[in-house]
């Protein structure tokens, strides 16, 4: 029997007066590795926030592991968009990753247990950043920051990982390194990843979901040029199973 990790039913959501997502339905099954793609401002981050209960849907229902997201979100490892991290903050890498162990903490006089420290060490070495542990957050590179954020999410010991553009700002080799790591992690947990790296994901993810205000497609990672046109409004160098379409040529015809 397949288990639903995330269940989104007829969800409409937005900020203030403007709807960002309109009538979205999406099921994420246990063990899947889903890539979410779509244009800027298409609502990808918003979708992740809905899954975490950070924002409430206007209409429809979001369920995480069968419950209200607020009840179960401590079972999820969230890797936010790196640009949201305050790199000036006086905190060491080890402390950042340790904060992943705070789930279910008591607010007053909380102390980390010995097991917490061990889990953090494991996460750090798994991401190959154990040697950075005592550095300040402001003293690491973008690629290293991405690893730190993933290590923090793994320290939660999650049933599911949610990643928001984890390869943004990484070079090609660091990106593929990261994807391979995620693929390995996928043996243990469900993964949902927002990305703009559309050319590469078809090689790694099991499913893709295309979001632009509504869900255009969810399924195997091969989609038609028509769908891409519909999704992005213009042809994009994309997927289509290893047959990339040239962006420049097609744009050239218009100018």
């Amino acid at each position, binding site marked *: 029997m397949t288990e639903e990790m995330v269940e989104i039913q007829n969800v409409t959501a937005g900020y*203030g007066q403007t709807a960002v997502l309109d009538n979205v339905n999406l099921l994420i099954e246990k063990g899947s590795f889903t890539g979410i793609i779509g244009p800027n401002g298409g609502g990808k981050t918003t979708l992740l926030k809905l899954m*975490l*209960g*950070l924002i409430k849907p206007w209409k429809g229902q979001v369920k995480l592991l069968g419950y209200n997201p*607020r009840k179960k*979100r*401590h079972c*999820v490892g*969230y890797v*936010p968009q790196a640009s*949201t*991290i*305050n790199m000036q*903050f*006086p*905190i*060491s890498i080890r*402390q*950042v990753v340790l*904060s*992943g162990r*705070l*789930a*279910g*903490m008591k*607010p*007053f*006089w*909380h102390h*980390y247990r010995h097991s917490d420290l061990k889990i953090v060490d494991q996460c750090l070495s798994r991401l190959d950043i154990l040697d950075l542990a005592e550095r*300040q957050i*402001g003293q690491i590179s973008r690629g290293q920051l991405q690893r730190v954020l993933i290590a*923090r999410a793994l320290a*939660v010991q999650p049933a599911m990982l949610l990643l928001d553009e984890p390869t943004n700002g990484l070079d090609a080799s660091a990106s593929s390194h990261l994807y391979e790591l995620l693929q390995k992690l996928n043996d243990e947990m469900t993964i949902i990843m927002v990305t703009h790296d559309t050319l590469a994901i078809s090689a790694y993810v099991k499913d893709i979901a295309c979001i632009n205000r509504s869900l255009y497609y969810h399924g195997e990672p091969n989609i038609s040029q028509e769908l891409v046109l519909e999704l992005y409004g213009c042809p994009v160098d994309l997927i289509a199973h290893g047959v990339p379409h040239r962006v420049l040529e097609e744009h050239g015809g218009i100018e």
Partner: protein
Amino acid sequence: MISLIAEYGFLQNAIIGTLLASIACGLLGTIIVEKKLVMMSGGIAHTAFGGIGLGYFLNIEPIYTALGFSVFSALSIACIQRRSGVINDVLIGMFWPLGMALGIVFVSLTPGYPPDMTSYLFGDILTITKTDLIIMGGLDLILIITVTGIFKLLQAYLFDEEFSTALGLPVVLAETLTYIMIAITVIVLIRVVGIILVLALLCVPPALARLFKPNLAVIMGLAIVLSAFFCLAGLGLSYEYNIASGAAIVIFSVFVYAVFQLLRYLRSLFFRSNF
């Protein structure tokens, strides 16, 4: 100077007062700077003026009404912000003068000769009383217990609010306590630097301390030491040259910060020219 201190009770009070103020200053100043709540704190400080006016109007010791007023407004601000998403800046721009305006209205409604408010606006550390010290000490104790008690939560909240929320941490509690503590800090500092000058004493020590890139707890400790230094030096200057103590403290601390940054700049120029 030492013999003077032994001789004059008011100087003893002043010195104990600066040390008590430094504790609040270092702890909350650090939080405020890291969470970028500096202007917010300025706003909360100015609402305290409304409370002082209310105190005169009701004929209660103004410091108590100021405490109540600023805690109340800090909580309302936090609440409005969370619920409505009004831009922070705009909100501050409204309640900052609102607090002052209420203070003025209350004072003008107060029967009799209008009281002198300057000691609350600019601080007057040389007139600090034993009662003031007891209040300051009690409030300090609340701050120390709260900050050490929720330190891990506080650090998580300050560093990454969204992740902490996603982790199911009581972020709203952390935020609420932070705002209450800001209000308390303002009251602790009122006697030393006054409402108008509070901001400098809240920013400069942690801003200097964080240049050494230590962790949050060390910044707090360092900021306490630095603000004690600024306050004592300012006190000395004010006594020596007979200028207002709050002004002396603010001018001295900003001056030290500027000199320090200038030295850093010169040093970086020097090192670069060597390559």
